[in-house]
């Protein structure tokens, strides 16, 4: 079934540790995104990539980095995790960046707890 696969689904992590959340899509979508979801705050964009080889900062990029080496994969890295990064992380994609190509397909999420 076409879609977005995220891993891990859940992780508990000690503060200061490095963590990479993986995201893979098989729809050949050009654009990919990472959001965090926190109670009462909705979804906030962390980083995005309009096409392979390019990335951009979203609303809350501090403490996170991304790479886009190919079309399918868009990993999110926390270099040194802090408790405020405890959240549910969603990877999403869209077919392109032209006007109208702004409907998102989401993965099932990765729940991260930083102690």
């Amino acid at each position, binding site marked *: 079934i076409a879609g977005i696969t995220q891993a891990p689904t859940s992780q508990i992590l000690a503060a200061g540790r490095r963590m990479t959340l993986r995201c893979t899509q098989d729809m050949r979508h050009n*654009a990919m995104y990472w959001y965090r979801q926190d109670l*009462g705050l*909705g979804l906030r964009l962390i980083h995005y990539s309009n096409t392979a080889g390019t990335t951009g900062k979203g609303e809350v990029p501090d403490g996170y980095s991304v790479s886009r080496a190919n079309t399918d994969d868009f990993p999110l890295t926390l270099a040194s995790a802090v408790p405020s990064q405890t959240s549910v992380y969603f990877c999403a994609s869209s077919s392109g*960046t032209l*006007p109208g190509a*702004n409907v*998102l397909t*989401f993965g099932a999420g990765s729940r991260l707890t930083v102690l």
Partner: protein
Amino acid sequence: AQSVTQLDSHVSVSEGTPVLLRCNYSSSYSPSLFWYVQHPNKGLQLLLKYTSAATLVKGINGFEAEFKKSETSFHLTKPSAHMSDAAEYFCVVSDQGGTASKLTFGTGTRLQVTL
């Protein structure tokens, strides 16, 4: 600048009764508006999208929303609630033609459906 306000954080209805989830937006330009649904422990799924065509937009699972420019509203409705409609619903706004990296999410409305 754009923003979106979901007026109710929690709505409870009885099965078979109408559903109304309220959303007001602010946008400098003609907006694109979306409703997404999130079932427990799942990613978000698109319910419907408005992009300046018909003001009454029909979505999946019997939901529809009406764009009212004079009231800057995009309320989501369904004539008869089903138990399977219990979920979190997000209203999303984008300036017309904006890419997905420019979407603004509301804080969500949790819909509870009781017998």
